[in-house]
């Protein structure tokens, strides 16, 4: 469940937490775009390290590390698949370039995970919903989205309780061959899904009895306002994008292997 931990919002006050979610989202999307533009190790490494000041400023390093650890398995998988496929497509040879390209693909994935992790760790679901609403997303969709985000940690906790309850009835999750192990998860998944459905029905009833959707136009208790820091982040975002686009067309990015003289 450690991947979920990396998305779990905790209420702390930091300059990053106070930033406007729309600006933060624009920043994350910019990082996303830059990570897609480049396929070389060096710019992706730069991108990776660029997030660290944000993480430290927001004081979420521990949860952030946990989300990276959670992503490690998938990252390793991406690396191996890349190495293997390039081995077959480049005429059954292992070259430094192949390894480097696979590393770049893995780094790209890690950059995406880390930037989204910072975003979700520092943005409360309420702010997120507000940002969606103010971006003219219909309230029903905004609400569904924020509720989904909000219930991720709840579901993770529930999954833990269910695992405990079944272990107490003698279920051994790590026992047996691969098929048996997959089957072992049936007693976990069914209660989890059933109680999620039951909860959503209860939530719907509770919402409707509190006049959900009674008025066409909703008002909000809080409204989002842009501050100095938000404009600074916007400037950084535009700067990164401009620099990346410029570098992509005008600078020949050297590979690590050529620098090392392979």
């Amino acid at each position, binding site marked *: 469940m450690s991947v979920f931990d990396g998305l779990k919002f905790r209420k702390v006050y930091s300059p990053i937490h106070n930033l406007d979610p729309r600006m933060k989202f624009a920043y994350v999307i910019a990082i996303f775009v830059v990570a897609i533009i480049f396929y070389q190790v060096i710019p992706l490494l730069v991108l990776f390290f660029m997030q660290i000041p944000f993480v430290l400023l927001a004081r979420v390093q521990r949860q952030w590390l946990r989300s990276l650890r959670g992503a490690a398995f998938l990252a390793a998988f991406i690396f191996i698949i890349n190495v293997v496929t390039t081995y077959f497509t480049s005429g059954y040879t292992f070259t430094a370039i192949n390894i480097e390209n696979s590393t770049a693909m893995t780094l790209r994935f890690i950059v995406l995970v880390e930037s989204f992790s910072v975003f979700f760790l520092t943005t409360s679901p309420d702010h997120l919903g507000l940002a969606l609403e103010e971006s003219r997303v219909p309230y029903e969709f905004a609400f569904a989205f924020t509720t989904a985000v909000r219930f991720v940690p709840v579901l993770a906790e*529930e999954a833990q*309780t*269910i695992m*405990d*309850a*079944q*272990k*107490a*009835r*003698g*279920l*051994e999750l790590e026992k047996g061959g691969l098929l048996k192990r997959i089957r072992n998860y*049936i*007693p976990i998944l*069914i*209660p989890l899904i*059933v*109680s999620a459905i*039951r909860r959503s029905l209860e939530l719907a009833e509770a919402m409707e009895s509190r006049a959900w959707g009674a008025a066409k136009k909703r008002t909000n208790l809080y409204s989002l306002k842009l501050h100095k820091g938000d404009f600074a982040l916007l400037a950084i975002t535009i700067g990164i994008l401009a620099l990346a686009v410029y570098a992509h067309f005008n600078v020949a990015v050297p590979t690590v292997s050529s620098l090392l003289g392979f």
Partner: protein
Amino acid sequence: MIVAENVWFSYPSKVEALKGVSLTINDGEFVAIMGQNGAGKSTFVKHFNGLLKPSRGVVRVDGVETTKSSVAALARNVGFVFQNPDHQLFSETVEEEIAFALKNFGFEKEVIEKRIEWALNLLSLTQYRKTSPFLLSGGERKRVALASVLAWDPQTLILDEPTIGQDHEQKEKLRQFIMQLQTQKKTVVVVTHDVEFVAECNPRVVLMKEGKIVADGVGKEILTDPPLLELSSIVLPQIAQVFTKLSELGLPKDVIDIYEAKNIILKAKESRHR
């Protein structure tokens, strides 16, 4: 026998849930663990079948350290019924739900058949044998969860909040049922907020607060000690409340049993008439 010696436990979130808890529960005892939310009750009892392992200290079940055994092995002797039955029900029929643990423990087919029969009968669920547990009412689901644990006949039974969502009749049945287990020398540990239920059962009461045990004794003494109960945000049982108010008349304060109460009142009435 369950022995906890100076047990400390903290969750990964660094919350210290238990701070040096020591407790011995003998075979055949009936213990109610009480205390406010977050006192560490559930955390503590989850150590009894090894779901949680102490960060410091030891828990021994029948002499075996829980850190040296798997949950499955410990569960064979320590049955744990969770608060919310929806956290464990997953089978297509009640019958299969009960069979789940029996199969996990490797019982023979004929034995499984017999045990299912026995458990269904015990909790008056026989008519629902082929019904989906998801179609049953909340109270019935709770009984299915209980039956699915009782079926393997563990020496110790841990019940987490067994009275929540049960009507009075079911509570009374549960009480009689625990008494019946007592006659078979089974150990029963109940985690509960339900002070009236505890008063009716009159077990040994262990009071917890902020990860520590603050009181341990017979129910009649602890449940009639207002300062102690206030410490744990527990209200006196109604009978004890009445007798506390009547203490000016020279009546005893430590009464929680309804029959004892009746006798005392009748006696007081007679002596006044004389």
